[in-house]
């Protein structure tokens, strides 16, 4: 019934997609999977606009494997009317999808370097496609480090995947939580506090940072203390998005349109804005 045509990025009309799988990741967080018949091509870090019939649209990062072109995957957290409706969907529901939009993580340019990924909270969703890509092309990179901070053990997303990656000998995975539960045996504390310990070569490394802005600020400070320059650090920004094509004006961050010039930015390009309140 559904052609599964990918949303035409040049058009602003959503295409209907059927949700073929729903996985509850944590309280209020669900991963939706949609199957397409024509290939859906995206770059890690990009996002789609997801439409809940009659309610509205939200910008959600694509969180699936870029090599699996027959699937469109999104991890949604219930935070408002539209995202709440999306996070509660069941298999068989139909939503509108258009995209992909935005800039992407520099996974190709990073070849030959160490890659340090620091994600906080739901920020692990936009970096997961980058992880898939790096792992699929493991031989092209030096050390690969993933630092992930969650609110509590119950809020850890993609747990099975993280455990699988941790078992590998060629990936460095560390997870920490802000608030421990009684049976938690792992790290407790903020994710920037893990940065002094990790092994990587600051002369030949890039960092991908994604999470709440405060967490990104602290993380960037810790990364710079380790010797990374602002040219080596990439962040994913978030702003209010309506059109996703740079025409409605809502997502402006200084002169940049986050939907079009971002969401991924090389930090030196936005560093002056980062410290300005209410910008």
């Amino acid at each position, binding site marked *: *019934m*559904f052609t599964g045509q990918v949303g035409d990025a*040049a058009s*602003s*009309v*959503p*295409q*209907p997609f*059927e949700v073929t799988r729903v996985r509850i990741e944590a309280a209020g967080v669900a991963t939706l999977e949609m199957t397409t018949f024509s290939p859906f091509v995206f770059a890690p870090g990009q996002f789609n606009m997801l*439409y809940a*019939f*009659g*309610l*509205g*649209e939200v910008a959600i990062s694509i969180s699936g494997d870029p090599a699996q072109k027959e699937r469109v995957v999104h991890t949604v957290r219930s*935070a408002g009317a539209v995202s709440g409706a999306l996070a509660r969907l069941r298999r*068989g*529901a*139909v939503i*509108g999808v258009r995209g992909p939009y935005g800039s992407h993580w520099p996974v190709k340019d990073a070849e030959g370097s160490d890659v340090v990924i620091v994600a906080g909270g739901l920020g692990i969703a936009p970096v997961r496609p980058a992880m898939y890509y790096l792992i699929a092309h493991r031989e092209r990179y030096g050390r690969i480090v993933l630092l992930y901070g969650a609110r509590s053990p119950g809020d850890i997303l993609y747990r099975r995947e993280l455990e699988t990656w941790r078992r590998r000998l060629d990936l460095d995975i560390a997870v920490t939580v802000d608030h421990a539960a009684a049976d938690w045996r792992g790290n407790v504390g903020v994710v920037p506090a893990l940065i002094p310990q990790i092994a990587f070569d600051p002369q030949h490394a890039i960092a991908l940072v994604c999470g709440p802005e405060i967490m990104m600020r602290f993380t960037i400070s810790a990364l*710079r203390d380790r010797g990374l*320059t*602002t040219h080596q650090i990439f962040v994913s920004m*978030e*702003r*209010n998005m*309506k*059109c996703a*094509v*740079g*025409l*409605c*004006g*809502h997502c*402006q961050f*200084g*002169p940049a*349109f986050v939907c*079009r010039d971002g969401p991924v930015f090389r*930090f*030196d*390009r936005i*560093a*002056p804005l980062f*410290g*300005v*309140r*209410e*910008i």
Partner: protein
Amino acid sequence: MSNQVATIGEKLVIEPHVVQNIISELAGRGYRVIGPTLRDGAIIYDEVKGLENFPVGWTDRQDAGRYRLEKRADAALFGYAVGPHSWKRFFHPPTERLWQARREGSAFTIVEAEAPHRPLALIGVRACELRAIAIHDSVFLAGAYVDKPYELRRDRAFIVAVNCRQASGTCFCVSMDAGPKVETDFDLALTELIDEYRHAFVIEIGSAAGLDLIKNLLWRPATVEEVAAAERVVARTRTQMGRTLDTNGLKELLQANPEHPRWDEVAERCLSCGNCTNVCPTCFCTTVEDTTDLSGTVAERVRRWDSCFTLDFSFIHGGSVRNSARSRYRQWMTHKLAHWIDQFGSSGCVGCGRCITWCPVGIDITEEAAAIRATAEPNEGDADARS
């Protein structure tokens, strides 16, 4: 009917009643003719049938937070500056339905809205307004994503421009290099010559479409004296600017001073009412509304004008990024005069003065820019310097 053949770029002369003929001819060709008309104490743009709808013999007096109409001593057709409307309401309408979705079981189909039908003919477009339209072209047509309804409306539009006979108290198009002379992007351009001896229009043909429209109407070639008179009109307007804006290094100045104390000062006056964004010919921000009918089977998406001055414009994660009026005024002015250049290659301001006139508390963008320039700190630091 004239026996002579006119060419593009040529300057002709027509009598005032031929302006009526232009309107009738355009209407006859299926255009929706928009021109200046008087309503609610202001000169606004609306559909016109003929010169009887024009604010003949009226002029305006404008200053910060002030707009009044006055009777003129003569019967000029275009004896005023610009009012609260701009042409953006026709190319980039205040509300526009984008698409409709119809539910079928768990699925739905989406149908895009029909493109607008009647092409537009605009009568009386000033140089600053032509620049504003060109700026919107760079926003909606020149980027990676083209706004299709806008493109269609622009493609088929016919523009009759007008060289300003007078500037208003809030005009500063000269500072923005956006007027008062109409230079390009028009089909016909009029300069009104009116004094105790004559009332006529020097008309410049700007395009093949303009030539095609005028060729069968009553015209004669302009004399050297008439061309010189027309140029004097514009030259005189040039000296009448009510405001000036120093644009030298203005982009760098504003981008380097997000914490200037002047922002606090203007925030004490600004009501964040959004009038400025409403009347500004280049402001283009919109929002979308998704609705359903009562049965929940038909959904609609409508785009409407929005303003960066609204509190929820920057709403994300339970709060607004720009919570204070200070940050919202700073955003509007910095975007208009600085960020716009990074985004679209030119300033977003055309010097029309509308934001100054229609601000209820009379905030003047030229005054704010001058105040910041007068007391700004020199630029400091670079991205890699640690703070």
